């Protein structure tokens, strides 16, 4: 304890610098966490947070009683793993391509074009999807009809939607991630490449032996950071593309959309918090696990 105070006294300035951040998290993240208690109460407007009757784990029952919890958790995790790995991989590839391209004009333009979807709201993406795949006058079914292919109704089958959702997710985040990787690549010293060139390494060898190994820390960091939200799903994405269309839920339902649906009609603060708590705890567990594995294998890259 005394050691701690001495430490504070000695590094006043450093501690002062971190104080706002600590205060911020205490105020906006830790204190509100008291609200988690709602998950265990039967909310009443009279009682409020602490006056409402305590009901233990009753609020969690609805998640289990439908028997959907396993499917939902599996869907959520699988979607996110695909999102994270595929997005990062493609972003990496695009960044390397862009970095190696000689033409300045082309590089800038393609970067901008790739970045553009990031600014498009998911509501619009939902409209795109509807106009692309609608069975009446959607672009894709019309094109298929023109080409003489058999009629295929996208909204009657669950299979294509996995790919459609993954596609739009990747499409939307591609430019953003590419810029992060590109920035990392730009930070590498030119000397490595020059030395490699003098040694006679061609472009592929240079990429394989210099760029990729040096990008690994960035790659791992980004993956770790995105894992924190793995159980959050991508509510906007799923909700805007699929909406309330029950016939597609089998392959597109994630925890977020499920919780939203069950509570939009039968709104209940207790059950809502319970679902949120489940999601958060599961997400934390996942981050801890992944971090543990990374620490065991490549200690330097672990978050904590």
């Amino acid at each position, binding site marked *: 304890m005394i050691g701690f105070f001495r*430490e504070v006294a000695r*590094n006043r300035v450093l501690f002062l610098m*971190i104080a706002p951040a600590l205060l911020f*998290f205490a105020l*906006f*993240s830790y204190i*509100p*966490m*008291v*609200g*988690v208690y709602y998950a265990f109460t*039967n*909310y009443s*407007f*009279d009682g*409020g*947070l*602490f006056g409402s009757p305590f009901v233990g784990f*009753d*609020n969690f029952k*609805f998640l289990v*009683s*439908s028997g*959907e919890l396993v499917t939902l958790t599996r869907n959520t995790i699988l979607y996110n793993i695909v999102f994270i790995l595929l997005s990062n991989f493609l972003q990496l590839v695009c960044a390397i391509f862009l970095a190696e391209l000689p033409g300045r004009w082309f590089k800038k333009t393609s970067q901008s074009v790739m970045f553009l979807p990031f600014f498009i709201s998911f509501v619009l993406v939902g409209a795109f999807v*509807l106009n692309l*795949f*609608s*069975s*009446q006058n959607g672009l894709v079914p019309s094109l298929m009809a023109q080409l003489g292919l058999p009629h295929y109704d*996208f*909204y*009657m089958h669950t299979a294509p939607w996995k790919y459609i959702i993954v596609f739009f997710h990747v499409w939307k985040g591609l430019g953003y991630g590419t810029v992060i990787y590109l920035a990392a690549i730009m930070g590498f010293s030119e000397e490595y490449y020059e030395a490699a060139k003098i040694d006679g390494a061609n472009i592929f060898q240079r990429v394989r032996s210099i760029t990729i190994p040096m990008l690994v820390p960035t790659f791992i960091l980004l993956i770790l950071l995105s894992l*924190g*939200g793995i*159980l*959050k799903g991508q509510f906007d994405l799923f909700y805007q593309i699929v*909406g*309330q*269309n*029950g*016939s597609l*839920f089998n392959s597109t339902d994630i925890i977020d959309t499920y919780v939203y*649906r069950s*509570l*939009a*009609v*039968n*709104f*209940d*603060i207790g*059950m*809502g*918090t319970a*679902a*949120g708590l489940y*999601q958060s*705890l599961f997400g934390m567990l996942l*981050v801890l696990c992944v971090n543990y594995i990374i620490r065991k294998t490549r200690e330097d890259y672990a*978050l*904590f």
Partner: protein
Amino acid sequence: MLHKRLKWTSAAVPLTLSAALLAACGGNSNNGGASASASASASTPAAGSPAASGASAGASAADTAAKPDTSKKVQLNWYVLGDAHADTPKVMDEWNKMLEKDLNATVKLNFTSWNDWQSKYNLLLASGEKIDMVFASSWANYYKYAKQGAFMDLTGLLPTYAPQTWKEVPQEDWDTATVGGKIYAVPNTNPEYTPNGLVYREDWREELNLPEIKDLDSLEAYMDGVKKNKKGVTPIGGKAWNEVYTLFTDYYDFKVYGGEGSVIASSSYDNPRDIVEYPFTPQFEEFVKRMKTWADKGFWASNTLSQQTEAGDLIKAGTGAIYWRNAPGAGGFITDVSKTNPDYKLAYFPFTRFHNYAIPTLPMANAMAIPKSSQNPERSLMVLDKLRNDPTYFRLMTYGIEGTHYSLEADGKTMDTPPAGMTVSKDWKPYDITSWGWRYQPNMLQTKGGWDGMDALNKEFAAESKPNIFDPITMDYEPVKSQVAAVNQVFKQYGQPLMMGLVPDPEKALETYRSKLKAAGVDKILDYVKEQANAYFDEKGIK
């Protein structure tokens, strides 16, 4: 030394990082927590005030001469459902000018918009925002919220602060607003019939020489004819769910308990005590098989469940033929279309004709209530009293500004829309905010040039009227709420696509739906509803 410092900073970094992660994880519950704790702290001062005002109400009732004190100027925060009209700020300015003079108060009228109104309404009440008056309704969970304590007890306040309303509203209407012996809302006073039905393009029916719509077969023939002969027309455009769902319940006369997401129903009006899970009935099987053929014929789009467009908008656009409306809604819609698309001819088929009886709407279907968070419940009630009973206030708020939104006929009871000199949709749109909560029939205006079928319909309904024995059953689903949430989920995921015929094999899908319902605990809800409903029927002497 250096070593030690490193250790400390290295401890601090993960600490903040983990804080960040926890923050990311906890996002959902945090939001709920923050807003709700605000409501908890807000309810403390508010909880004191009704008791205090109740006491003062009692006191002032004792010496009747005392007029409520309005010396302090207040701004009241009101909320109604639906969307504002472009001219609402103008109308409210006018309105507030009068109100400020009479009651030293102004009202800020807020709207939830129709999009996603349920969640917004719920959040309004839960967040503890200071609201002085809000729309309330049996179909917006009034009874549930009243039981949970979301609304203020008005029993003691009404005689003092809304004396005229207290006198005018009949006792049986107050009874429908009473929960646990206390009145929590002021129901509207406008006896009406609001059965479901379909508005359709009569001109096309005549042109194509199709049979008159009077049952499921003629409806099918009509849609078939339209689909085949009118290129580019989808009989029920946009989201077709309301059309099909109400057709199902009304065609088989199922009386569903607990709103759309529930599957518990009395098997018919005449057998209220025969309470069943309707997806397990042969009628349901017959219906879903038929709907499969309808969906295959293209009566609605296969992505209808993903759509947000109202079928009515597509009628106006010329690419739709059918639209679900309740009877007064149909009247309004037909009047509206006669002005925007004068060359169309629309007709209406009320579902009451399947079984030849109509049920009057519960007064609590539209009402105004005061949330617990209100700081000026007394003044808010006084304003409501004024709004309901003073024709000037009532008409301005309900129908807009005379001369701009409507003009009054000589008889003072009929309004002309659009007013003389205005043309539809260019400089005039009907002033149609959600005024249902404060309706008071003697002050309401008839629309001139309104759909002439409305009167005939109302006569038809009145002649076959039967008492409303189902709506007053106010059930609290608290003991079975996790089953209700789970069933609601199954309904959305398996029930809706099945009922819309959007499944490859209805028999297999029905099988799945039934087994999922069982797993979700539908039987528990059935037992609970049976017990509650039978208790009510016993009490009211319904066989």
